[in-house]
Every structure is written in structure tokens, then in C-alpha cells.
């Protein structure tokens, strides 16, 4: 019996070896040839024509905005239909390169674009930008989606994706609890904010609900807001855009991380933050179990519906007050490099920014500021809603030139593999603020270098 097994084992081994040798003739994957798509200038605006067109779209599950816009577009252009596939954002992030390489959609919700551009998977939109006039919009709106064809630092170069709107992050607060702890108006300096946190704790209210569990380190939100409170957003953006020589380990960022550690040590965050995910944080805040929540305006519509009139919003004030900065990013959509209906997809993206109904949908369904020219008509929003407050905050940040991309977007892996474990260690007291920034910077260098 044992002899026969080993005989069979060696046979399987031999077959395995043979398969390996057969497969090992050459390396896997493409050749890494530079793209020739430079987004040549167009002489006239493309259209969707009059023949039936089916745009193949790949959207994010749980966010109704793209679907609502598609429906309206089909209403206005009856020859255009949408074939929509949806997935969770995490799934889209993991599948984006393969999907764009093998089965490119015409319109796709995208994660951070740099690795996709490096592999020539996205259509260069410079031609469309020129003919539609997207390059005349406030530059900061689309800056995060620019890159040199074939790779390099982000933030300048050709346009490789578009926003359906741009979101802004900051601090949501529960108005009922704010009243109870004596906060009459949003704080205007960081010290004032600290004061409210202390008062909330004394009153037995959880000062900040936060998520930091699993693979999603939510403490990155307050950390980056604190970075903006202590320093200039520009170096942070340079780091996110992978500009040569950029570092996250700067004196002002160390101060920000130390301040965050101070909040952790004071017990201002949800007690079991390291076991709390985003959904749980939301349900805690909606249940009234927390004064503040660091989050983005994609929740504005939801909060207006579930806690009408009970929630306010402000950008985290700077150390000494004055100009504010915050994470603000376009809801990124791109066109596959080999997409069949690229022209019609570009028409859709332009329509989203310019059509009045579309802009209204962007605000009402998406809760965020529409993209488009600076003088484009803003849809009216009911006063007293969170949506109105987040839109106002968005305008203030754009006026203060304080828009930052998210530190989690610096590389494809930096969030799950560096920020998250490091922030979980910081929360558990297993890592120092200085050590956290050093560790992330070291991971960043390995990832950017490779």
C-alpha cells in the first residue's frame, strides 16, 4: 500500500514538473510597451449619434447616483441604453486592471488611477477635455486624475478620468448631543474642538464614533484632517501623487499624529474601534451614540433622510483657525482604453457636468458638489440640511485652495497594508506617532520604487 502511494505521488510530481516546465517558456503578461494614445485634439464635439447604442457600464454597489444619472440620460437620449454591472468598491479595486485589460467597459467607476495608467488601460481624455472645455474648469477639480501617459507622478499631465461630482470630508455632528454638551456653534480652532471633546466625555457622551477594524483603518480620516490642521496640504498631496522625494514623515505630520494619539489616550474614540467597521460606525452615529463622526458628504443625503434636521457638518478647523483644508476627491469614472463606445461615454461625462437636471441629480442623489465650470448654475438645496452645509464647506475648501486627495490613495496597497495595520497599532498603544509615519513612509518607498 505505501509503495503504491509513493509511486503515484512521484507520477503526479512528474506531471506537475512537466506542466511547470511547459508553462515556463516565457514570463507571463504583456510587454510593457509605451502607449501611443496621446489623446489627440478633436475638431468637433463627439455625439452619441442616432443609432441605438448600448453603453457597457461598471458601477459601485450601494451608491445610487450613477444609475440615476444613466436613467436620466437614457430619457434625454432615447437611443442610448446602459448595460450596468455592479460590484462593491473593494471588488472593483481588485478587478479593475483585469476587467479593463480583458473586457473593457465604456464607463467604469475607478479606484486610484496611477497603476491603471501605467499599464495603458485607460483612455486618454485630453482630446475630449479640449473640445468640451473641461480644461477650463477650476484645475483642482480634476488635478487628481491627471498623469503623464505611461506613468509617473499624478497631479499633472494628461487627463485619464473624470468626476461625476466631487466629495468633501470633514466632521458631522449630532445637533441634539452638541446642545447637551454646550456646543452652540461649530468650533473655529483646533483647541476649541478639543474643548468640546473633553466636555462631551465629561457629559458621558462618546465624543467621536470611528471605524478602525478589519482592513479599513478609519482613523486615517481624523489623521489626515489633523495633518491639514497643522500644516500645508501641498506636501501631503505631493506625497499622494508620488512626486519624487515626497515624504509623509514631516514635522507637522508628526504633530498631527501625536495629536491623534492624544485623542486616543484620552478615550475620545469608540472604545472597540479596532473591531468596528464602517457600517457599524454609521449605525452607531444614526442611533445617536456619538457626538462627532469623521466622514464624507456621500452620507449627506442618507443623514438628511434618517436624521432630518439633527445633523450638522464643519471642516476640521486649523490649529489657529483661518483657512481650512480637507480631503476632497472626484467620484472617479474612466473610459477603457479599448472601449467600443468611448465617444458616447465622453458625451455622458460632459452631460453630467453641464446638464441642469444632471447637476440637480448629482446634488440630490449624490449629496456632493457637481463638477463643472466655476460659473455653472448650482442647483438649489433646502437650507438647514446637512447637504447644504457640506456643499458650503466644499465651496469654502475650494476657495481656500485646501483640497487634498486621500492619503489612502497614494498607492494601491498603502491603505490595506500600511495605514490600516499601523493605525490599529496606534489605537492599541503598540505604535508611536513617529513610528507610524516612519513605517508608512518605508512601505511607500518600497511600493513606489517597484
Amino acid at each position, binding site marked *: 500500500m505505501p509503495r503504491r502511494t509513493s509511486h503515484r505521488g512521484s507520477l503526479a510530481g512528474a506531471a506537475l514538473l512537466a506542466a511547470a516546465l511547459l508553462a515556463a517558456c516565457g514570463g*507571463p503578461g504583456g510587454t510593457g510597451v509605451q502607449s501611443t494614445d496621446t489623446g489627440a485634439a478633436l475638431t468637433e464635439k463627439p455625439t452619441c449619434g442616432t443609432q441605438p447604442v448600448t453603453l457597457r457600464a461598471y458601477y459601485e454597489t450601494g451608491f445610487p447616483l450613477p444609475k440615476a444619472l444613466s436613467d436620466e440620460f437614457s430619457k434625454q437620449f432615447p437611443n442610448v441604453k446602459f448595460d450596468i454591472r455592479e460590484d462593491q468598491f473593494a471588488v472593483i479595486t481588485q478587478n479593475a486592471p483585469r476587467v479593463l485589460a480583458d473586457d473593457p467597459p465604456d464607463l467604469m467607476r475607478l479606484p486610484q488611477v496611477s497603476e491603471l495608467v501605467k499599464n495603458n488601460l485607460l483612455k486618454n481624455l485630453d482630446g475630449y477635455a479640449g473640445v468640451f472645455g473641461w480644461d477650463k474648469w477650476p484645475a483642482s477639480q480634476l488635478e487628481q486624475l491627471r498623469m503623464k501617459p505611461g506613468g509617473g507622478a499624478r497631479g499633472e499631465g494628461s487627463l485619464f478620468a473624470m468626476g461625476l461630482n466631487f466629495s468633501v470630508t470633514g466632521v458631522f455632528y449630532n445637533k441634539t448631543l452638541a446642545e447637551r454638551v454646550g456646543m452652540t456653534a461649530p468650533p473655529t480652532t483646533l483647541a476649541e474642538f478639543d474643548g468640546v471633546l473633553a466636555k462631551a466625555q465629561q457629559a458621558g457622551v462618546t465624543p467621536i464614533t470611528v471605524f478602525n477594524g478589519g482592513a479599513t483603518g478609519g482613523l486615517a480620516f481624523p489623521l489626515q484632517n489633523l495633518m491639514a490642521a497643522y500644516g500645508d496640504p501641498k506636501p501631503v498631496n505631493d506625497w499622494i501623487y508620488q512626486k519624487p522625494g515626497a515624504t509623509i514623515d514631516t514635522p507637522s505630520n508628526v504633530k498631527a499624529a501625536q495629536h491623534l494619539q492624544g485623542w486616543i489616550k484620552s478615550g475620545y474614540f469608540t472604545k472597540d*474601534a479596532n473591531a468596528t467597521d464602517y457600517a457599524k460606525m454609521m449605525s452607531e452615529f444614526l442611533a445617536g451614540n456619538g457626538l462627532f463622526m469623521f466622514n464624507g458628504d456621500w452620507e449627506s443625503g442618507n443623514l438628511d433622510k434618517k436624521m432630518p434636521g439633527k445633523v450638522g457638518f464643519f471642516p476640521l478647523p486649523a490649529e489657529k483657525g483661518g483657512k481650512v483644508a480637507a480631503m476632497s476627491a472626484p467620484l472617479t469614472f474612466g473610459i477603457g482604453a479599448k472601449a467600443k463606445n468611448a465617444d458616447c461615454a465622453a458625451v455622458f461625462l460632459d452631460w453630467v457636468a453641464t446638464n441642469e437636471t444632471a447637476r440637480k441629480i448629482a446634488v440630490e442623489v449624490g449629496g456632493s458638489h457637481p463638477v463643472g465650470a466655476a460659473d455653472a448654475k448650482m442647483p438649489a438645496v433646502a437650507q438647514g440640511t446637512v447637504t447644504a452645509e457640506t456643499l458650503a464647506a466644499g465651496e469654502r475648501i475650494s476657495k481656500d485652495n485646501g483640497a487634498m486627495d486621500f492619503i489612502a490613495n497614494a498607492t494601491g496597497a498603502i491603505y490595506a497594508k500600511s495605514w490600516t495595520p499601523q493605525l490599529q*497599532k496606534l489605537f492599541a498603544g503598540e505604535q508611536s506617532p513617529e513610528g507610524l509615519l516612519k513605517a508608512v513612509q518605508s512601505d511607500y518607498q518600497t511600493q513606489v520604487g517597484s
Partner: protein
Amino acid sequence: MTQRMAGGVLTPPASRPEVLPKTAKPRVRRGKAWIGWLFVAPAITAYALFVLLPMGRTVQYSFYEWDGIGASPWVGFDNYVKVFTDPELSGTIVNAFELIVFFSGVPVLLGLAIAATIRRIATTRLAVVARTVLFIPQVIPLVAAGIAWSWLLSGNGLVNQVLSAVGLGGVTRAWLGDFGTALPAVGVIGAWVLLGLCTLLLLAGMSKIDPALYEAARIDGAGPLREFFSITVPSLRQEIGVCVTVTVIAALASFDIVYIATQGGPGNTTMVPGLEIYYQAFVERQVGVASALAVVLVVLVLLCVLPIQRLTKEES
């Protein structure tokens, strides 16, 4: 085939054994072998295409640096060196070995005790209930079990409520979010899932033991404990071998329970090789490193399982 049938009809029964073996048997054998290959051809094709080829590809990829799309330079054994020198990667292997205690140790030992108890009450209705209750975790999808357990083990979950109720409020914590307890907490979930399987396997093994052995032992004055160690455990050698093999593989190659309960957090304390392979391949886009870790994991599983097989299979 037809020849043998014809022979069967034509030859008188008495002479058949003498005539047939000489002429027909070799030919039948050769034909059988050929037809045999034909029968297994579909299975072999599927096996080669979906098991051997991907395995070969994994080995191949482990020698390249590849992001899954673009060009892939040959890097030799660099990826393997990284697996053993990067503490983040080698740490996952250590975690997997720690999980063996929970995934194998607890279910096999506890399973033996429970199976022995159930066997003693085999005819009662309670035995049926106990068997069913213990086996239910095997039927529940792992994802559902993982979610249910993450609720039970959360800061204000049932586990902490019970602890507080009996005056142990001081030890309550978010079990899956605490650096010290996250890995054991994941282990407990694994033990809960695998206990039923082990108990059932061991019970089935016990039903094959000759009752006369127990009777003889009892006549010789053996108590239940002596019976257990002198008859039950030695007779279950093979079943225990199967249990240990299956559970050790489950521990080393674990993915689903960890992915649902902690996703490797907090701070990589519950990161196991299976999960790390997934992160390397789909998040970091280091297909080469992921493949190298996968190859190391396979070798590791074989190194652990083959000795167990040999130990438990050999006739004493």
C-alpha cells in the same frame, strides 16, 4: 470481450479454467487497460487543466516580478527570499501554526471526549440531539458563522454580556479587535466549526469497535477511563489520523473565517498565509510574491501532513 463470452458458451464448465487463462487473459488485460484510459480521460483532462496547469503556473509565476498585467522580469528566487526574510510574510506562517492548536488540538481532543460520552448514551434521544447540535456548524455557511461570531465577540456582544453578568466585567473587551486576543478568538471560531466534523468521524469509528472488547475489559475490571485509553483511542488510530490531517490543513490554509472575522487585523495579528496570498496578488499586485508564498504554503502543508499520515496509517 466477445471472445470470452463465446468461450464461456462453447467450453464445457469443467475445462474452462484450463483453456481460458492462457489465451484470453492477456488480450483482455491489454484491451481493458486501453479502455480504462479512455474512461479516465475526461477526469484526467479536467484534472490537468484545472489542477496541474494552475499549479504549474503558480510555480512559474513565483520566479517573476509581475503586477498581473504588464511586463514581468525574471527574478529567480528573490520572491522566495522575500517570503522568508520579510517579517510581515514569515509572520503569517507563525500565526498559521498557532491556529493549529485551536483548529486541530481542541476539536480532536474535545471530539474524542464528546464522542466517547455520546457512545455511552447511544440509544437515548439525547445522543441524537447532541450529534445534530454538534454537526450544525458544518452545515452553516462559514461566512454566516463568521458574521454571527463577530457579533457574539464584539464589545457589547453576548460573550461580554455573559462575562459581565457573572461578575467578570473586568475582562470584557472587543475580542476580535484586541491585539492579544484576536488570534485566539479566531481560533475559537475555527474550533467551533471543526468540532462537529471530528466528533462525527470519531463516533463513526467507534461504532466499528467490537463490543466484545469492552465486555472483556469490563470483566477484567476496567473502568470507563481505562476503557477509553486502552480500547477506544488505539482503535480510532485511523480516524484520529483523518481528523488531524483535515484540521491541520484547515488551519494552515485558513482563509474564510479570518477574512470574515478580522480581515487579518488588528495590525496583522491574525494575518494567515491564505489571506496574505490574496492581499499580495489582488491588493499589492505582487503576483510573484503571492505565488511564492502559495508554493511555500503547499510544501508546508505536505511537510506537516505526510508524517501524520505515516504515523497513523502504519499497522502496529
